[in-house]
């Protein structure tokens, strides 16, 4: 009895406190304006950031109608820009449902950390937003396509990126993996590229290719094919296709191989005091499309196809590695990290020299292709007379 009254009293006191002081984090859902995506540009003078947000505007009516809306505001820092934006927008901008962040090339070249830090430190922004680099001159025009296409473009882009595992057109980077890459030693970051493409007279953003970073600065791009090779090396392919040109008599015929499964292993080897990376790739594919009547399905044909595919894969992968080594000198494949994990002793010695070492690193590719099935047909199509 006694303790009950005591408890009641404490409740009363607490309640009093609250009623007098009001409530703090309470915010009505309809006072918020949901930000679907953000784009970050440099202003023309170069000393300010331009923050563009794509917001979802909801009209009330019989059924809810959502419209995409963009808004661009400048500020000395990103938080400053956001604050300026809040003073314009009637409703409070709410970032927890933001899906993508697009960086312009200028920003990326200057150093991504400057903007990534705000994205990561902000408690409201989720760390699973997708980060992209715009191949267009500004980042905001990507988001601005939304109002023309009646789509929330950020959500669409997010969906596209989430499908990348099976398309293998661009690396998918959520903010937190990006932070891991930027912070980790022995690996450089890559980001997906987004550009505008004309489809049926409409301009739509398309995610293809890779932006290559060194430290946190943008140094160049990889095209779609190189991107796929990069993803192969990073063991991030779970689908997509390989196109194999026929050889010899069948030079004109192409065979499409659908990737069913892929597993890549990086193995650092120490040979005569020299570090080498051996890339072992095990891929299971299915024949998906044969342009022509050449029989790739019986055993000799299949073996031949496997072998030629392996070879072209090896060539293409080694080319990419070499290109990155010579052109960008940025360890986007994570060779260094692998060395650190497997040979911590060696890594300790070479860590500071890695920038130079990577350039001359010998990399060998050992692909192993297995054809598992030939889709719905057991034979190539026959063309009768």
């Amino acid at each position, binding site marked *: 009895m006694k303790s009950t009254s005591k408890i009641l*009293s404490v409740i009363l006191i607490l309640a*009093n406190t609250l009623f007098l002081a009001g409530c703090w984090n309470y915010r009505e859902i309809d006072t918020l304006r949901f930000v679907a995506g953000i784009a970050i540009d440099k202003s023309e003078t170069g000393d300010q950031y331009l923050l563009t947000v794509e917001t979802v505007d909801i009209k009330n009516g019989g059924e809810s109608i959502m419209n995409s809306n963009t808004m661009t505001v400048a500020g000395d820092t990103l938080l400053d820009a956001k604050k300026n934006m809040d003073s314009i927008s009637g409703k409070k901008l709410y970032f927890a449902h933001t899906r993508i962040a697009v960086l312009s090339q200028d920003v990326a070249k200057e150093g991504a950390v400057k903007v990534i830090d705000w994205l990561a430190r902000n408690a409201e922004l989720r760390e699973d937003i997708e980060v992209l680099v715009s191949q267009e001159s500004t980042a905001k025009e990507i988001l601005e396509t939304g109002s023309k296409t009646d789509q929330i473009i950020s959500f669409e882009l997010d969906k596209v990126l989430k499908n990348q595992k099976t398309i293998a057109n661009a690396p998918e980077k959520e903010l937190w993996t990006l932070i891991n890459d930027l912070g980790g030693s022995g690996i450089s970051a890559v980001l997906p590229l987004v550009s505008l493409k004309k489809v049926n007279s409409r301009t739509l953003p398309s995610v293809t290719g890779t932006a290559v970073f060194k430290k946190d600065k943008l140094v160049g791009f990889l095209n779609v094919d190189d991107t796929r090779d990069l993803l192969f090396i990073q063991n991030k392919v779970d689908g997509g296709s390989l196109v194999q040109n026929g050889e010899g008599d069948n030079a004109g015929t192409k065979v499409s191989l659908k990737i069913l499964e892929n597993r890549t292993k990086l193995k650092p080897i120490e040979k005569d005091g020299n570090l080498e990376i051996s890339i072992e790739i095990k891929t299971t594919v299915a024949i998906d499309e044969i342009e022509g009547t050449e029989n790739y399905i019986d055993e000799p044909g299949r073996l031949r196809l496997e072998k030629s595919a392996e070879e072209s894969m090896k060539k293409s992968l080694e080319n990419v590695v070499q290109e990155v080594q010579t052109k960008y000198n940025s360890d986007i494949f994570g060779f260094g990290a692998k060395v650190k994990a497997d040979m911590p002793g060696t890594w300790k010695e070479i860590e500071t020299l890695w920038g130079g070492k990577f350039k001359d690193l010998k990399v060998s590719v050992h692909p192993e292709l297995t054809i598992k099935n030939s889709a719905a047909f057991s034979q190539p199509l026959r063309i009768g007379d």
Partner: protein
Amino acid sequence: MVVLVIFSYAFIIYLDLMPLYRKKLWRDFGVNMALTLLTFAIAFLISLDVAIPSPVNPIKSLIISILGK
């Protein structure tokens, strides 16, 4: 805030201290009274926005001096 603190403490004293007084548990009453005064002083100062020196600081400096950091 100040008013709130005083009001709450009046309430607490009525419900927490008075029964001890009525039951004539003088020891309990005394110790409780001392504690009440202590917490009231702190709460009062907090409500007045007076910076109260943290009791942790001397501990911190003591240990740093011992460790010689």
